[in-house]
């Protein structure tokens, strides 16, 4: 037996590149989504290098100009270049989307795994509190938080993060309940490891698949929520370039006379959320062993 084991050839080490290539081959839509997300990230974080104009500079000589070679996506009512504002707006969307999703996701992860591990009264209290927060739709909860703390980027992030926490916690908890009963968790407990070590070293890594899928979907939800809050005048404020804010200024007053003011920020929101959702779906498929086998 032992000779056989020694003679077995080593399992092939798959490089990240090969994993990525396989993902691209098996998930073409997800790859398209990933490309959109990458483009958005690159554009957003190198806005200073890419944007042709200052996104907040008024140009009264170029007010509500339609798309042209000088302004590829046209200008808004203040003569500000729409392309530059959309490029910088990607940064705002990413900052709000990623921060809310990551902070909300990780908080929900710790809370969900902890709740499952400890069980009993702690689990009961955490889950009932989650029920209360989840009773409100995300945007309503976010509106309430902004109404209390006021508008602005930080408060918008806070407003979106709070309702995301119980959503992540609930999904993660259901996976963690299964993990808690695994022999290796019992073994860790028998070895005298503390709760923190068991949760972080043995349980959290085993609920990462649903967690990553949740976080990915949260980014899209957060971008949409930020756009909605800004559209309602409760998110980021002028002159900060933000897609929802651009819709608020343009869509209402200039929908018929200068429709490009509404169309391009709307397209940006749509493509960003589509990309993130496609990528999230593909990642779920890729991480799901049952779907992976097919």
């Amino acid at each position, binding site marked *: 037996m032992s000779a056989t084991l020694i003679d077995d050839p080593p399992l092939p080490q798959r490089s990240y590149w090969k994993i990525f290539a396989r993902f691209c081959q098996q998930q073409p839509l997800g790859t398209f989504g990933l490309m959109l997300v990458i483009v958005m990230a690159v554009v957003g974080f190198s806005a200073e290098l890419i944007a042709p104009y200052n996104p*907040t500079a*008024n140009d*009264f000589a170029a007010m509500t100009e339609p798309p042209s070679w000088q302004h590829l996506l046209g200008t808004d*009512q203040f003569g500000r270049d729409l392309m530059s504002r959309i490029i910088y707006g990607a940064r705002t969307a990413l900052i709000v989307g990623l921060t809310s999703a990551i902070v909300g996701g990780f908080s929900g992860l710790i809370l969900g795994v902890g709740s499952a591990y400890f069980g009993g009264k702690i689990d009961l209290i955490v889950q009932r509190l989650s029920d209360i927060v989840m009773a409100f739709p995300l945007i309503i909860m976010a509106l309430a938080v902004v109404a209390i703390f006021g508008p602005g980027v930080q408060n918008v992030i806070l407003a979106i993060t709070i309702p995301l926490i119980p959503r992540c916690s609930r999904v993660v908890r259901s996976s963690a309940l299964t993990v808690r009963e695994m022999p290796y968790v019992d073994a860790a407990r028998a070895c005298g490891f503390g709760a923190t070590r068991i949760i972080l070293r043995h349980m959290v890594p085993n609920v990462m698949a649903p967690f990553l899928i949740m976080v990915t979907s949260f980014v899209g939800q957060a971008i949409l929520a930020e756009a909605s809050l800004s559209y309602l*005048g409760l998110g980021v404020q*002028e*002159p900060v370039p933000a897609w929802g804010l651009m819709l608020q200024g343009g869509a209402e007053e200039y929908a018929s*006379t200068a429709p490009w003011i509404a169309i391009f920020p709307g397209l940006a929101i749509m493509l960003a959320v589509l990309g993130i959702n496609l990528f999230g779906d593909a990642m779920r498929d890729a991480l799901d062993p049952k779907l992976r086998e097919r």
Partner: protein
Amino acid sequence: MRIRYGMLGLALMAATPAFAEETPKRGGMFTYMIPADAPPSLDAHRETTYATLHATAPFYSVLIRIDPSNPSSPTDYVCDLCTAMPTPTDDGKTWTFKIRDGVKWHDGSTLTAADVTKSWQELIHPSAGVLSARLPYYAMIDSVEMTDASTVVFKLKFATSAFLPALADPFAYIYKKEILERDPHWYEKNVMGSGPFRFKDMQIGQSISGERNAQYYHPGLPYLDSFTGIFTPKQAVEIDAIRADRASMEFRGMPPSARDQLVKELGDKIVVQTGDWNCVNMITPNHGKKPFDDPRVRRALALAIDQWRGAPALAKIANVRTVGGIVFPGSPVAATKEELQKIAGYWPDIEKSRAEARRLLKEAGAEGLSFELLNRNVDQPYKYIATWVIDEWSKIGLKVTQKVVPTGPFFDGLRNTTFDVTVDFNCQGLINPAMDVGKLLPHAVYSENYGNYEDQKDIDLYQAMLHETDPAKQRAAMREYETYVLDTQAHAIMMPWWERIVPMRAYVKGWKIGPSHYVNQDLATVWLDK
């Protein structure tokens, strides 16, 4: 764009007075919109909103008013209930008004000088528990007395040019003495006047309607059989209603984009009346917060703004138009362009102005200053103004963020002076420069000033101007006051004055736009050409 403004030009041409040239047609029902949910009450003495005035003005009379055929004039006062505009006696301190004979209340009883006297006494000295919203405007009035059944005498504490505009306040409805004595709150929920229309019906939050008063004392008026005012707080609904001819117009005013849209879609079926509006936004720094306690910093804020180039551009997208000082631009006591250009913030050479702003900031140790601009969650023109000035300030190195909050928290912020710098406003009814500029007085004297400063010289200059009765000298005193508050102390920075834009169905005739959406709202002269 060219096509759009070409059409607009045609529409504006079509809007030029049809008042005198055409023969009015009688009859018809006029439907207009009131851009509000509902009036807080029906009593104009206690309210300050157009929601009350646009709904109830057709039911009431006033003592004097701005001439409805010339509402743009800030000085053309005519009698409504009186028989002739009096000449004052006692060095301008006594004004005697003769009241028309045969004026009937809508209940059939006769209106007398006693009703006029009682109404004005309630405005000046309201009964306990009764609110008179514009009390400070009547500060110069000492007493109102009835000397006989058709004579009312106003005695003033001091002669001032501010008296007649105060008297012509369109909110100063004449109420029936007997009702006021029985229940001073009766008019908050009920209507009974002597105006061109009798009250017919009101559906809370939906509409108010009236029918022609056949016993109206101005011969031949009103022309309409009836009217209905529909409460429509949403601008999109208003545009749709005008487009579909479900309503003919709204009187308050719309932004340029709405005007452009309606003109583009309705062509010659719509006309647009425009004019300066007695409303202005201003930027008020909080003097109680450093570094805004330093006049050099406040002057720098003013010097950074290119009013002359900004105003015409903003006029294309926001309901603002005219560069002006503290006085309504159409007034005889308003500053001329040459006079304004000597004041900080109005210099003709913007590069020189901004260089001076940078120098002042450096001298005050406030280079690259960062602060927050408080603003009200109202698009037109508040947010447009803020976006513009933030960009202007960035040109002298200031880093400004905006905090937009709903109306309630906005006023809390103003009253608690928790802001760094705020978008402020001064909206008045009739043009009454001597009273309107009181906004620039310290809060201790004028409660609606939010600059958080004390300044005795400011008060002294204002009082000298207010008590001056010679027009030329008053104008000079106004210049001195204006230069002090806008340049020397830079207590506030005036923004371009608002523009009133009223698109209306072309068949609506007999109504002329004025500098206030409170003026000329009794509908007596309105007729329908269809």
